[in-house]
């Protein structure tokens, strides 16, 4: 698989190293000649000095045969432009962009970027996981299908405790796919499964119905 990474900073460097270790063909496009040289010296001839937002650079990088195009510069605008060029000019099948400002994520998605990675949101999710006051956690975005996988921990005082799943006002199209119970085997719930306090539920939902799910499973 041929992967192009735009941005040869620390993130780009370690990402490149990890992907090379996996046996992938990787090229890093880096604006700074010094950084580019360092990468070439340490990882082999895998860096191209140039601007990933320029068509000529992407042509020289062989973007036309690229399988995955990843942008990890510190600049959201550069990440967006480079991904859009890759997507629309070179028909790259999969583009992934780093987003520094989480508010930009929606714009990236609207403009056709296949996947976004927001470090702010990732850290936030980890913090939420550590805090008992945040029992709903995002596990995975399935952007192309407009779905997300979330984990919900049922608070002891929730109105859903002791009720069957079919009795709950769950959002339309939502699926409760797995229940993990303390010191018991995980189970695939059916409509008649009774919810217990502190159940960890893995659910597949539409992102816009997150509040409905929260109300159905976590309200006092």
């Amino acid at each position: 698989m041929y992967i192009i990474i735009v941005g040869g900073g620390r993130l780009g460097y370690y990402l490149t190293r990890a992907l090379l270790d996996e046996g992938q063909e990787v090229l890093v496009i880096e604006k700074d000649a010094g950084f580019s040289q360092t990468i070439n010296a340490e990882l082999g001839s895998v860096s191209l000095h140039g601007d990933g937002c320029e068509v000529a650079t992407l042509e020289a990088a062989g973007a036309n045969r690229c399988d995955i195009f990843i942008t990890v510069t510190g600049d959201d605008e550069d990440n967006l432009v480079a991904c859009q060029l890759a997507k629309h000019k070179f028909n790259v099948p999969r583009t992934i962009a780093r987003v520094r400002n989480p508010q930009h994520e929606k714009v990236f998605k609207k403009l056709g970027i296949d996947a976004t990675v927001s470090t702010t949101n990732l850290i936030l999710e980890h913090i939420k996981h550590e805090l008992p006051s945040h029992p709903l956690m995002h596990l995975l975005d399935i952007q192309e299908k407009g779905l997300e996988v979330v984990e919900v921990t049922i608070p002891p005082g929730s109105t859903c405790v002791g009720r069957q799943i079919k009795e709950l006002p769950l959002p339309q199209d939502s699926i409760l796919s797995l229940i993990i119970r303390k010191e018991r085997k995980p189970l695939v719930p059916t409509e008649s499964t009774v919810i217990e306090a502190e159940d960890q539920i893995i659910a597949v939902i539409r992102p816009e119905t997150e509040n409905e799910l929260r109300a159905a499973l976590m309200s006092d």
Partner: protein
Amino acid sequence: MEFYRILVPVAGSQADEGAIELACSLAKQQSRSKIFAVHVIPVERSLPLDAEIKPEIGRAEDILGQAEKIAQEMGCVVETDILQAREVGPAIIDEATEREIDLILIGVTYKKHYGQFCLGDVLPYVLENAPCRVLLDHQIDV
């Protein structure tokens, strides 16, 4: 000085002939010496590294054939190889490392770029990164 494994990168320039001849002369001084002649085809990133670039491969075969002929005339055997790489310098260094070469011998011409003497990109890289001795052979009549 004894050299048992000599690598001669050939690029199809006029200086190749002198480099092969010198390599043969050095090899003849040791009974177990081996000469390796390689030609590196730089492959654009728009193509996979193992792409079959027929005109380039044909040219490489001609260049290496010529090197073999020169060595034969001097009573030596040269092992030849065509390499495909993104950059020539690192490919030469990798080859020298893999084959445990103890001398890289390169024929050079006196190239000028904008009126200034210029070694190009490959030679400085080889000089900086070679795992063995490097000999640049410049012939005055080339």
